[in-house]
């Protein structure tokens, strides 16, 4: 059954169009990421936004706006429809009135990575791919392994050797071949790229294929739906590869084009990085269009140890367009915020998610936020996957 209104792929750099029925990676002309484009007019004419709300829960209830053409190829492990939780104790502590967290830890494999990999692996299966490869700081590997197992695809994963044990073990349990790399995710990416080219593995690295961002964008749809088809004032989001931030901004563009939003007010997007690896923050502060490669990247938040995203120019463009900001926080404040979220609100967040609370506190100090604004933090995963870190002594 045909379920998607996917029209074509478009280069985010040079706007060249590409067919979606063929396997694509990134733009061969200018080497920028490819993005999915949909026939939005027929969607707006034939789909009622409120009807989507009543469909079976999960990411695929947005199937008209996702890239998988045949419903039989949708690989579903329960991803999506994560809770948007109020944070009443932190609100009081911080003098805010509308503080929420989108808690992505309830996704399959315990992180938001499930969304992107659900979309990418489903589409890979639809296109006849049989073996997939990924470089990962951790959670993306676990997610890819799970979805590849479900789809019957072979999986090959390159991870830094200091990746949390849970990520290594979950990937191996799902049958993936795991190679531990003495280096960072950028080093793993180089190795994965070489293996992909030499042996014909399909590389699902962040933004080097067009579909992970489609799964991630659903976080934006869900937010709009949760706020009765309006958007919050501020979204504070941890940024490694930046798929979620780019995906949500793309979702807001699509929702606006569909006429599904009640007004045109967009959130200010805040990109949060660790001060030991903050290429987006540095570029933002310089007003640059691209990031410099971050040297000697280090932080306990392994998902933030990305020295340079392949989509850096899109991340920066979206932050500028949203009139947002970028902010770096220390590992100490991440750990302190992780304890605070758990002790005050009962949410054991991943360090990347805790970084958003650390950033929130700094933005309050700077006077960048108004107390009455609707602010959404993103907890991208479960703290249970990082048990070797100092908070768990």
């Amino acid at each position: 059954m045909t379920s998607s209104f996917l029209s074509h792929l478009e280069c985010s750099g040079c706007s060249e169009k590409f067919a979606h029925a063929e396997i694509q990676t990134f733009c061969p002309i200018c080497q920028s990421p490819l993005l999915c484009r949909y026939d939005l007019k027929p969607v707006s004419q034939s789909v009622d936004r409120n009807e989507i709300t009543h469909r079976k829960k999960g990411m695929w209830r947005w199937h008209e706006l996702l890239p998988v053409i045949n419903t039989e190829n949708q690989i579903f492990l329960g991803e999506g429809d994560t809770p948007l939780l109020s944070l009443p104790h932190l609100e009081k502590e911080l003098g805010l009135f509308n503080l929420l967290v989108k808690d992505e830890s309830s996704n399959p494999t315990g992180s938001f990575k499930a969304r992107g990999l659900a979309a990418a692996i489903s589409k890979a299966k639809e296109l006849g791919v049989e073996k997939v490869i990924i470089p990962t700081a951790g959670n993306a590997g676990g997610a890819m392994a799970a979805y590849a197992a479900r789809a019957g695809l072979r999986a090959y994963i390159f991870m830094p050797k200091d990746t949390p044990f849970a990520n290594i073990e979950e990937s191996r349990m799902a049958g993936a071949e795991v190679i531990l790399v003495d280096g960072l995710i950028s080093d793993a990416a180089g190795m994965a790229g070489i293996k992909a080219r030499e042996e014909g593995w399909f590389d699902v690295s962040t933004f080097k294929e067009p579909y992970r961002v489609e799964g991630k964008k659903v976080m934006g749809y869900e937010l709009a739906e949760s706020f009765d088809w309006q958007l919050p004032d501020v979204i504070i989001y941890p940024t490694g590869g930046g798929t979620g931030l780019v995906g949500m901004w793309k979702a807001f563009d699509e929702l606006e084009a569909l006429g599904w939003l009640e007004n045109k007010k967009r959130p200010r997007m805040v990109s949060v990085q660790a001060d030991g690896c903050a290429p987006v923050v540095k570029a933002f502060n310089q007003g640059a269009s691209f990031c410099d490669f971050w040297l000697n990247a280090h932080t306990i938040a392994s998902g933030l140890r990305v020295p340079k995203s392949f989509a850096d120019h899109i991340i920066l463009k979206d932050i500028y367009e949203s009139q947002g900001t970028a902010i770096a926080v220390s590992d100490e404040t991440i750990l302190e915020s992780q304890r605070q979220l758990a002790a005050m609100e009962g949410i054991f967040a991943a360090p990347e998610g805790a970084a958003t609370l650390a950033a929130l506190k700094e933005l309050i100090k700077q006077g960048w936020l108004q107390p009455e604004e609707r602010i959404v933090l993103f907890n991208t995963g479960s703290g249970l996957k990082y048990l070797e870190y100092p908070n768990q002594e």
Partner: protein
Amino acid sequence: MSNNILYIEDNPDNMRLVQRALESRGYHLLQAKNGLLGVQMAESESVDLILLDINLPDIDGYEVARRLRASSKRQLALTPIIAVTANALKGDAEKALEAGCDVYMSKPINIRELWARVEAFVPTP
């Protein structure tokens, strides 16, 4: 003002891509397929900027950068060098900068970023 860019790169696909990209902006691309040839061309030709792959078949890009910086052709001590690599080994970026490169770019090379980085040193003709 001259606009000669030397690209030291053994991969013909990358060479073609960069040639097309830079020539479309009016630059003139000099091509070297290995490190030793690259050093030789940098010393014998007028070069305004060098794009340097790190994984070369003879001497690696770090050694190329060191030789360029130590060259008897004094101008090469100041010629901008942009290292370009698939960063397959740990610390490539750090090593490239230590060897004398000014900027590090990872592959795949985003053409818009390449234009911006080249133009920062050599204005578009």
